[in-house]
């Protein structure tokens, strides 16, 4: 019986070209591009920008968890510290926004190297705990350090002029810059997933011992993906600081690390597009249910429980399973 099933599925898939990218992904990317271009005319640009920043953050997190098999509970450290550095660079150093964002992103990269190098020595829950511990250190550093503004954060960050030429004070102009940044970030993540590096990464997450026995130095791959994920989370945080003209303790708080886990799980961990959907769902809820105050957290909790109980693969994961195509 099992032989028959195998033969059957083999003949179905026999025309799939190995290593070629799923063609429907290109269609979805074009759809997202179109949606992104008309969105600011239908919805508040500032709201869509928030969705974009968090979508990039969630995609970066998903790269680590969904494809590297590493669960970090401390991703707020990269998001938040990049947000502080970006805000500081724009406000105090007077850098143009693209340079401020670059500074923030690079700071997340450096932090990613340091935290990653120490965290990947442990596995599973211990890895998660190490990342959480480091994120808490970053939080208390942010609370105490002078340049972060403590409880107040860094406020009234100037949006400045892109390349010193184009004023970003208009929400719509800023929107297209943010859209370009997040789109580039997501395309990079997509490329990483479907690269020779990504293949090895998936293999390691599925069977680490076997990857070792084939001669792969797995810790180097883990560190590389950790740093990539941290850097892209930093890009999201740094951009967010320019959009909201604010960097605050919320960005480095552990609940921010929790939120990105939530977004990724609701959207579908290990799927390409899931984190975008998850981020959109959570940010929309936070925005439109804001009048319910503290109830938003409770509603989020209930949705989370429902997701875990009823469709563990997340929204996109369930669709992917139903249509038998990877999304």
């Amino acid at each position: 019986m099992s032989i028959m099933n195998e033969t059957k599925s083999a003949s179905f898939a026999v025309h799939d070209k190995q290593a070629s990218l799923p063609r429907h992904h290109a269609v979805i990317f074009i759809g997202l591009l179109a949606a992104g271009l008309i969105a600011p005319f239908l919805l508040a640009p500032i709201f869509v920008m928030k969705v974009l920043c968090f979508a990039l953050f969630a995609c970066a997190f998903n790269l680590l968890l969904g494809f590297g098999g590493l669960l970090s509970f401390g991703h707020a450290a990269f998001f938040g510290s990049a947000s502080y550095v970006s805000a500081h660079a724009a406000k105090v150093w007077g850098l143009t926004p693209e340079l401020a964002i670059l500074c923030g992103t690079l700071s997340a990269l450096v932090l990613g190297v340091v935290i990653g190098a120490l965290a990947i020595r442990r596995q599973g829950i211990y890895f998660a705990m190490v990342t959480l511990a480091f994120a808490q250190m970053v939080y208390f550093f942010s609370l105490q350090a002078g340049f972060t503004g403590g409880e107040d954060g860094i406020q009234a960050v100037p949006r400045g002029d892109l390349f010193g030429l184009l004023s970003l004070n208009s929400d719509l102009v800023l929107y297209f810059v943010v859209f370009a940044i997040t789109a580039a970030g997501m395309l990079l993540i997509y490329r990483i997933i479907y690269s020779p590096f990504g293949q090895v990464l998936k293999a390691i997450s599925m069977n680490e011992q076997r990857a070792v026995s084939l001669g792969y130095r797995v810790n180097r791959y883990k560190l590389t993906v950790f740093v990539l994920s941290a850097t892209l989370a930093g890009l999201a945080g740094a951009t967010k600081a320019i959009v909201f003209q604010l960097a605050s303790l919320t960005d480095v708080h552990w609940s921010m690390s929790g939120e990105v886990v939530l977004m990724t799980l609701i959207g579908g961990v290990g799927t390409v597009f899931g984190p975008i959907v998850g981020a959109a769902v959570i940010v929309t809820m936070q925005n439109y249910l804001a009048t319910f105050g503290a109830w938003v957290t409770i509603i989020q909790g209930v949705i989370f429980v429902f997701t875990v109980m009823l469709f563990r693969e997340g929204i996109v994961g369930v669709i992917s399973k139903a249509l038998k195509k990877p999304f």
Partner: protein
Amino acid sequence: MNDVLLSATNLTKSFGGFVAVDDVNLHVKRGQIHALIGPNGAGKTTCFNLLTKFLTPTHGTISYKGHDITAMSPADIARLGIVRSFQISAVFPHLTALENVCIALQRQRGDSFDFWRSQKVLLQFNDEACALLEDVGLSEFRDVHAADLSYGRKRALEIATTLAVDPDMLLLDEPMAGMAQADVERISELIRRISVNRTILMVEHNLSVVATLSDTISVLARGKVLAEGDYATVSQDARVIEAYIGEDHG
């Protein structure tokens, strides 16, 4: 000494007070199929994990082609050309059979840290991967996820994957464990075929399986080497008979 490829000298491993492998000396000659057998709990798998560096020995040295490799990491051992299999079949479950083999072939590129390049560069390995799958009789399953293959086919895929890194030496951990008789014959035949120009050290529980396959047999019991030699010598050895019969019927 020149024809000894892998040798272990005074190899000892203790876990707390329990000595799992006790002063074992093992010399695997180039080009041979060498079997390490013994009853349950004899220390075969521990010994195996020591040789592949998945465990660190308490005492003793391991050398390969005359170089001391005792302090090397498992990945570096693999890079020298010693590749191991696992007792529980080791495949990458959510990759297709073809992708499984390609992961191993990809090692020819050295390290694959190029995350900016499309995986289309891996298409160059497809033909070689297909040839390897054909070798182990898995051609028609190339696009099936490894998780969906039967147990025997998973083992065959594992062997194809191992061959893909073209090792000088293969270490097989109970390649026939839990297999149906038809599969045992198929895998035995496969091992015989791939042993050409290669050295194989295999761990087996069952003496009869290795009888026709191996050139040299080392019998391990309670962490020590009881006897060593070809099948005729070993199977007549009184201590070996006692170790086996004592276990199976005692």
